């Protein structure tokens, strides 16, 4: 059975260029307020089956929260409709509707009532709500005296204890201390076990992998992928990389000068001057010339790939043309995250990475045995430096590969851990 059916939903926002809230201003502009239109959602079709957990993935501004608000009924779609079957509770903001001057008890009733539950429903569940929030001591004090953690706990406790058929969650699971977070996760898993439908907005891919059966990926208001959650993570990563690349391209076009922010990616002891952000054409010295013609990722069978399961071997091959290189060079191979954090970079003077001769044409290959990365998209860079530490060539973060994670572990790297319990007798 379908729990939530989203049929051709579009949402248009009109963003006024200026705010005209008074009648005088409206009259002066003949009732027309200058605005520009912005489609936050474009013709979204999505069906969510009963009892499944669906993640909505996307960058900031992709429309995922707008979609969730439409499902919750807070926003009304401009076109299309959403059919919701069953009782729905939304956790868009924990404790929204809490009044600081009311006691915790009064707020539980008010909040649950806002979520659509009757006094009778709440009476039955009141004790379990208070117990879940761990607030039995303070339930009769005004919530303005609560800490933000207590506030959020009470909000979460209300939302999960009011027995919804469908639960909407918007990036609110990161509240409270770790123990409470675990409790929240447990409750969500219990919800899943009970066959309830959960829709979760997140940009944490870990969360998607851990809890979601399906996921939908939104980009700039379009639904770009729906289906299997692991596939969706890949699709989401593609968007991140594409966006990053186009931003970078725009950046390169805007300034051909050396930029300070990329300089820190170069080994510390090099005094290079870098003229080239990696389009692979020029170098610092006119007579010396290296050009990378291709970058290929291969698995252990030698097949070209773009994504590789964690733990397998990976080769990165840079095909090149070069001229007038008659000296030894040192290569620097780096792996970065999409956000630019260095995952790996070899030491510049490492003999292992020295290159004796390039010739006119060839490939430089970096073999990685048992890639320890867990998952994510990673960018590779290749730099070539001469003995005076001058940069001869740099191809910086243009090529990427992604790692899929067959395990349920999360993080950057897979560390082989063997838990052992020794009981003292």
């Amino acid at each position, binding site marked *: 059975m379908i729990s939530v059916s989203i049929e051709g939903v579009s949402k248009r*926002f009109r963003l006024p260029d200026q705010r005209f*809230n008074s009648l005088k201003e409206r009259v002066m502009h003949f009732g027309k307020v200058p605005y520009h239109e912005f489609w936050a959602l474009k013709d979204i079709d999505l069906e969510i089956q009963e009892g499944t957990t669906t993640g909505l993935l996307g960058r900031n501004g992709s429309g995922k929260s707008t979609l969730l608000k439409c499902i919750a009924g*807070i926003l*009304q779609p401009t076109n299309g409709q959403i059919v919701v079957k069953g009782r729905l509770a939304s956790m868009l903001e924990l404790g929204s509707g809490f*009044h600081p*001057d009311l006691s915790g008890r009064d707020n539980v009733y008010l909040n649950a009532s*806002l979520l659509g539950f009757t006094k009778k429903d709440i009476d039955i569940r009141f004790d379990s709500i208070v117990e879940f929030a761990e607030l039995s001591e303070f339930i009769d004090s005004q919530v303005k005296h609560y800490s933000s953690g207590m506030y959020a706990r009470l909000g979460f406790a209300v939302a999960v204890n009011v027995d919804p058929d469908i639960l909407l969650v918007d990036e609110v699971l990161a509240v409270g201390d770790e123990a409470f977070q675990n409790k929240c996760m447990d409750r969500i898993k219990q919800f899943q076990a009970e066959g309830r439908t959960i829709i979760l907005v997140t940009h944490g891919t870990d969360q998607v992998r851990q809890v979601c059966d399906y996921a939908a990926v939104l980009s700039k208001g379009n639904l770009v992928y729906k289906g299997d959650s692991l596939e969706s993570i890949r699709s989401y990563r593609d968007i991140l990389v594409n966006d990053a690349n186009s931003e970078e391209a725009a950046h390169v076009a805007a300034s051909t000068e050396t930029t300070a922010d990329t300089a820190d990616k170069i080994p510390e002891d090099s005094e290079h001057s870098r003229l080239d952000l990696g389009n692979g054409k020029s170098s610092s010295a006119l007579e010396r010339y290296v050009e990378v013609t291709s970058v290929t990722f291969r698995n252990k069978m030698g097949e070209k790939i773009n994504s590789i399961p964690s733990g397998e071997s990976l080769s990165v091959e840079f095909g090149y043309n070069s001229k007038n290189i008659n000296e030894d060079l040192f290569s620097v191979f780096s792996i970065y995250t999409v956000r630019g954090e260095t995952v790996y970079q070899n030491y510049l003077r490492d003999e292992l990475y020295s290159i004796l001769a390039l010739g006119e044409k060839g490939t430089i290959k970096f073999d990685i045995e048992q890639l320890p990365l867990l998952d994510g998209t990673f960018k590779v860079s290749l730099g070539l430096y001469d003995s005076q530490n001058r940069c001869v060539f740099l191809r910086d973060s243009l090529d990427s590969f992604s790692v899929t994670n067959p395990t349920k572990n999360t993080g950057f790297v897979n560390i082989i851990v063997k838990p052992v319990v020794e009981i003292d007798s």
Partner: protein
Amino acid sequence: MVVRTSSTRDQIRVVSAKKGLKATVAEIYSRRELLVFMVKKELSTKYRNSTMGFAWSMLNPAFMLAVWYFVFSYVMRNGIPDFVVYLMGGLVAWNFFAVSLQSASSAVIENAGLVNKVSFPREILALAKVGQAMVFFVLQLIVLALTMLIIQFTPNFSQLYLLVPAMIDMIVFTSALCILASALNVFYRDIQHFLEVLLFGWFFGAPIVYSFTGNLVSGLSRYHVLIFYLSDPMAVIVMTFDRVLYGKANVINNGTVVHVLPNYSTDWFLAVLGAVFLGSMLLLLIALKVFSKLEVNFAEEL
């Protein structure tokens, strides 16, 4: 653990820009408990951090009453005997209307946080203000009854039932305007300031501090504007309140006969109250329709 109530499983809700009037009304009705909670919230938070607390809800109208009483009994000398009862009868109805409308105009704006985060019929925000005013209205009626007991004034018990249609009219008419004002004020923040001025003038459109008799009626008739005066629902409602609570059309004061209330019959009152009811219902439907239409853009404006 969690108790499942399977009866609600099959409920189907459609979110779309096109929502019918019937659906709107049904939705508001189904969430009437929320309305009660919202009224409770309004009442318990309004005077929370003031020393006098809830007493303010009575002090404010009491002070108003004292000022009007002093002005019209001693300064203007309108010569209405037991003027305090006459004044209170009209003032309770007027206060209900004015307080509701004034507070409801900003109801949606002051709850922007809720409107952006939780789904519920937003009309309830305006109706909660009406509900809050209703509580004050009842309290003021009690005070009026006590006053009558103290000064040994007998109201017109034989026509007491007229209060029922008058109060229904009052609630419907007030709710309609409150819903309309709360939605319009989101887009035109002038509304709440405009209402202050309007309510000040409107106050004199109903026979609260003067009596609707003699020169006034003949004057209105001569210029054929009596119908306009009587098409103000608040004028009719206040007149009904006075008819029931004050009750005496002609009072002998110091040997002279004072004409205080119009001599309209019970049937006349019922007919006019019926007309006001129809008009108010129509206004309420229009208000709900306008509200649904404007509601779509609340989130963007707030």
